């Protein structure tokens, strides 16, 4: 039986990718950014922790999807996904390999559970998906885990509510539990934390709000699932809304225990947050 062993969340700031791809990890600006991932990189290498599959919840940043077609929730079921060219050439990272049997199983289960998924078989994947892989796995020749991409629209409003995202996570957990293959599965939520990339208010950071959010992932998940879009927008900046994707991860976990936390300002324009949660189902 497949089981979710852990939830991992992390910001997916493009600059993290730049730092890795250009070998800048030791530079003073980057050092404290990467230091907080050392614990996780050691943890995730241990055989008992290494995931066979990562269900990776991310948003597309106008890379695979333009304004011609905007899915609310999508799941990647294709064999593999190539890194996208976001305007400066594709990142020099391995192709992302899926576990199509598992992905299709989850897709079917979610649709029967009344999530109106869009199924995607061909899709370039941008920094939203590849930066978390780099942060956790470094620079291998091939990613050490298979990846089921779950895409959430957080660009064009209305986006799904935090509560809907949480319930998507619950439905993902049901889907995973009913898959017969023995698989160590992790679910990752990406994006955030507080940041705003646009307008005169750009550069907004709200460390206090972010830390409370990190606390309540284990302390008060019921509060988090009720946080409204307007609160994210006012308190964490227009791009802080990406935190709803952490709620998909959270919804898939049972009574999670915090194993590790990393919070650093700034990474580019962003408050970088990262947390590792053990699933105690």
């Amino acid at each position, binding site marked *: 039986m497949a089981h979710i062993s852990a939830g991992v969340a992390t910001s997916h700031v*493009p*600059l993290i990718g730049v730092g890795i791809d250009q070998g800048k990890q030791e530079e003073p600006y980057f050092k404290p950014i990467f230091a907080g991932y050392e614990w996780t990189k050691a943890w995730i290498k241990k055989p008992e922790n290494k995931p066979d599959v990562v269900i990776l919840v991310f948003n597309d940043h*106008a890379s695979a999807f333009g304004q011609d077609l905007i899915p609310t929730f999508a799941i990647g079921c294709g064999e593999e996904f190539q890194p996208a060219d976001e305007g400066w050439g594709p990142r020099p990272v391995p192709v992302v390999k899926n576990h199509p049997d598992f992905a299709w199983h989850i897709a079917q289960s979610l649709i029967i559970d009344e999530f109106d998924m869009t199924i995607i078989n061909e899709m370039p994947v941008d920094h939203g998906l590849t930066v978390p892989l780099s942060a956790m796995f470094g620079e291998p020749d091939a990613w050490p885990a298979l990846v089921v991409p779950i895409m959430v629209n957080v660009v064009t409003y209305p986006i799904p509510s935090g509560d809907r995202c949480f319930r998507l996570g619950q439905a993902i957990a049901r889907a995973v539990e009913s898959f017969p293959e023995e698989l160590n599965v992790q679910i990752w939520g990406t994006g955030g934390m507080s940041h705003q990339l*646009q307008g005169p208010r750009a550069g907004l950071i709200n460390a206090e709000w972010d830390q409370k959010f990190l606390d309540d992932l284990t302390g008060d998940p019921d509060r988090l699932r009720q946080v409204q879009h307007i609160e994210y927008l006012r308190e964490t900046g227009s791009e802080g809304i990406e935190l709803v994707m952490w709620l998909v991860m959270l919804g898939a976990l049972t009574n999670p225990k915090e194993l590790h936390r990393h919070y650093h300002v*700034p990474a580019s324009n962003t408050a970088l947050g990262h947390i590792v949660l053990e699933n105690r189902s």
Partner: protein
Amino acid sequence: MGKDLQNYKDAFEDIPGTRVFTTERARQGYWLNQFCMTLMKPENRERWLADEKAYLAESKMSDEQQEALLARDYNRLLDLGGNIYYLAKVFSTDGLSFVQAVSTMTGMNVDDYKAMMDAGGRSPDGVRSIKEGN
């Protein structure tokens, strides 16, 4: 749902210095944003950099949007329905980082903006709500 939807969206307009990408903005910016997507191909980036006006002539975007794009006036582009994830294709093609491009929208020069970020970023205090002034 109608009132809910209206309240939902009205609140977005109460955030200082922020353009939430509502459907109204999405519609206004449609051709502008779709233009940005074309810059994901190296051959299109070359053509754009070689002759911006000629390349723009192929787009259905408005004259205003074209002007703002040529001027790299990102606040104006936001006002005209541009979305930052789309516009990122433009400044990436220019070789600018997110910090360099984003700072141009704040009225600060890039060094001051960087210094603000290094010092913990912009506080939400005073910029949460236009109405509440908090």
